[in-house]
């Protein structure tokens, strides 16, 4: 759980602009591929009506232009927000506790593993393992509580969906 604390201003600016530019760069590639595929679809049908490619071409073209503008802006100038912290869009953030990309990445990886194991191991086992792993990562001071919560909440959620809501979660390795 290493925290990336706010670095000196010049360094922070360089890092944030880089990450922002990479994000818009990826978005640009996505829109470009989307537009490329749209070009293979009909703009108008033989009857002169709007074809399946009409909307995708419009969306792709405008998307490419707007993403390019956003990309150029993110490379050329440092947004004012880098000095006060990143924009969240809602203004609902709490106190500054540093940045924790590693913790977040581990939770994303664990969530992906949960999705991969969900049908193989079953909702109950995969859910319990996920909860135990994440609670161990985020709440290390209370291992016993983590174990109780990990198993108890997984069983509780399983019963809620399976019994109460009749949702049909995968049983996996368990016989029920």
């Amino acid at each position, binding site marked *: 759980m290493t*925290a990336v604390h706010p670095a000196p201003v010049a360094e922070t600016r360089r890092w944030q602009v880089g990450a922002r530019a990479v*994000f*818009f760069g990826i*978005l640009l590639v996505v829109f470009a591929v*989307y537009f490329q595929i749209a070009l293979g*679809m*009909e703009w*108008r*049908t033989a009857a002169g*009506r*709007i074809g*399946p490619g009409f*909307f*995708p071409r419009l*969306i*792709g073209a*405008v*998307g490419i232009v*707007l*993403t390019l503008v956003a990309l150029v802006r993110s490379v050329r100038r440092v947004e004012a927000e880098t000095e006060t912290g*990143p*924009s*969240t*869009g*809602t203004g*609902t*953030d*709490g*106190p*500054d*506790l540093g*940045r*924790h*990309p590693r*913790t*977040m990445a581990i*939770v*994303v990886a664990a*969530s992906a593993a*949960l*999705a991969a194991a*969900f*049908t193989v191991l079953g909702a109950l086992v995969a*859910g319990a393992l*996920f*909860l135990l792993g*994440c*609670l161990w990562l*985020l*709440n290390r001071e209370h291992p016993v509580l983590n174990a109780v*919560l990990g198993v108890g909440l*997984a069983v509780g*959620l399983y019963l809620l969906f399976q019994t*109460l*809501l*009749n*949702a*049909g*979660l*995968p049983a996996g390795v368990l016989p029920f």
Partner: protein
Amino acid sequence: MDVFVDLGQGILALLTVQNVLLLAAGVMIGMVVGVIPGLGPSAGLAILLPLTFGLDPTGAIIMLAAVYYGAMYGGTITSVLINTPGESATVASTFDGYPLARQGRAGPALVIAAVASFVAGTVGAVLISIAAPVTAAVASSFGPPELFLVVIAGLLTLIVVVGRNWLLGALSALIGFALATVGVDIGGGAQRYTFGSTELINGIDFIPVAIGLFGIGEILHTLWRGGHLERLGYFAVGAGSRGFWPTRQDVRESRGPILRGSLLGFAVGTAPGAGATVASLMSYTLEKSVSRTPERFGKGAMAGLAGPEAANNAASAGAMVPLLTLGIPGSASTAVLIGGFLMWGLQPGPLLMEQNPEFAWGLIASMYLGNVMLLLVNVFCIPVFASIARVPFRMLAPVIILLCVAGTYSVNGSIVEVAIMLACGVLGFFMRRYGMSPAAMVIALVLGPLAEETLRQTMIISGGDFTIFVHRPTSLVLLVVIAVLVLLPTVLPRIRRAVTARIATLGGRRSPTEHEHVGGGTPGGSG
């Protein structure tokens, strides 16, 4: 008076034991979700939508309306007690709510907020009863060209008025539109962007996207900013203590703001795209400007809490008007609701009130009953829900993620949708991180097929001639509205600068040390 008879019948029809229990459960679950910092009504609705699948449509919508109001009020509890609003719509509640809690007046603040929500919800339900049939009657004369322009105008309002940055807002909406084109083309039956996958033939379902963007995205963002390490400064609140109930002066000070906030909030909420956030901030500014003691604002003025609370609830009710009559969601939360409607085979729009009156009036009635239930639950259970805010985020985060995964899987039993949900969660994190608008994306995803279908129909009517938009009077008016919205980004900064300068001048005259909350700009997102 027919509308009130319809409303009364709607309320009576809903008063069964099962429905009352669903209302109570919805309000309580909504409040539990709402008090979790970072999660607001849109996330609450998205995460809990799968839980309503076992119910009939009426029961499901009753529960969702209750969740909506419960989550909204849950955000107020955290705003007052820990200075952390659940989402942008309750940001204004922190301005005076938290200072009141610091003065040991958390109880009166929460009770007044509950009463304000109740009054606003009641006023909102009455106003919907009047406005919805009228709007539906006007909207029923709309043809495809007008509907297409209404969709565009709604999105533009969201992007221009609510968002901080129109470029990023427009980009967010385009991502939503792009996702909406996945699947079979409704016009000719051709497959688009399915890459041979049978799972994608029916398109990308709205629910995994909403759960990912609002649920997982918020959790990831909170983890990234260290929410799991937070030690919250918490103000206790006990119903038994003498100071729990508001004084007569509190009630006197709140009456006017609640009424003004209710009317203002409803009016703002009815504009597609504008929402509870704008309404609550406008109400705060209004109350401060009409107050005889504006220097108390930001330091614990009851009027500064009551007005915005009423406004955000009334705006939530107002947002139902474009939702029910035009099929245009005015906010992220109503976009999730529209997803629910579509799932139950109900198409919101001008014909909904005509073809499914029992459903439309049932929804309006359930909103009213949700408010009654909210008031009852609130007054007696504030301390219980306040204690949930004490549960640390580090323990809640994994549980919410598991709930999102299980909920998404339970919709269609598809692991591909779970993967889409997680991918949208990561996308939602980056969108939030770089100032984009997940709300605009979700609304565009919902409206994309409608926009495409109405434009297609328009072109069929006109024989491919785009001048049809200027030849029809109503669509010409809508085009003018769109033109104004497009011009706003260039005009708005100048107006803002002028208003800020004016406020600064007035503030300087009144109190040099006073905090200025509203001048910092309007937060994005929406209620």
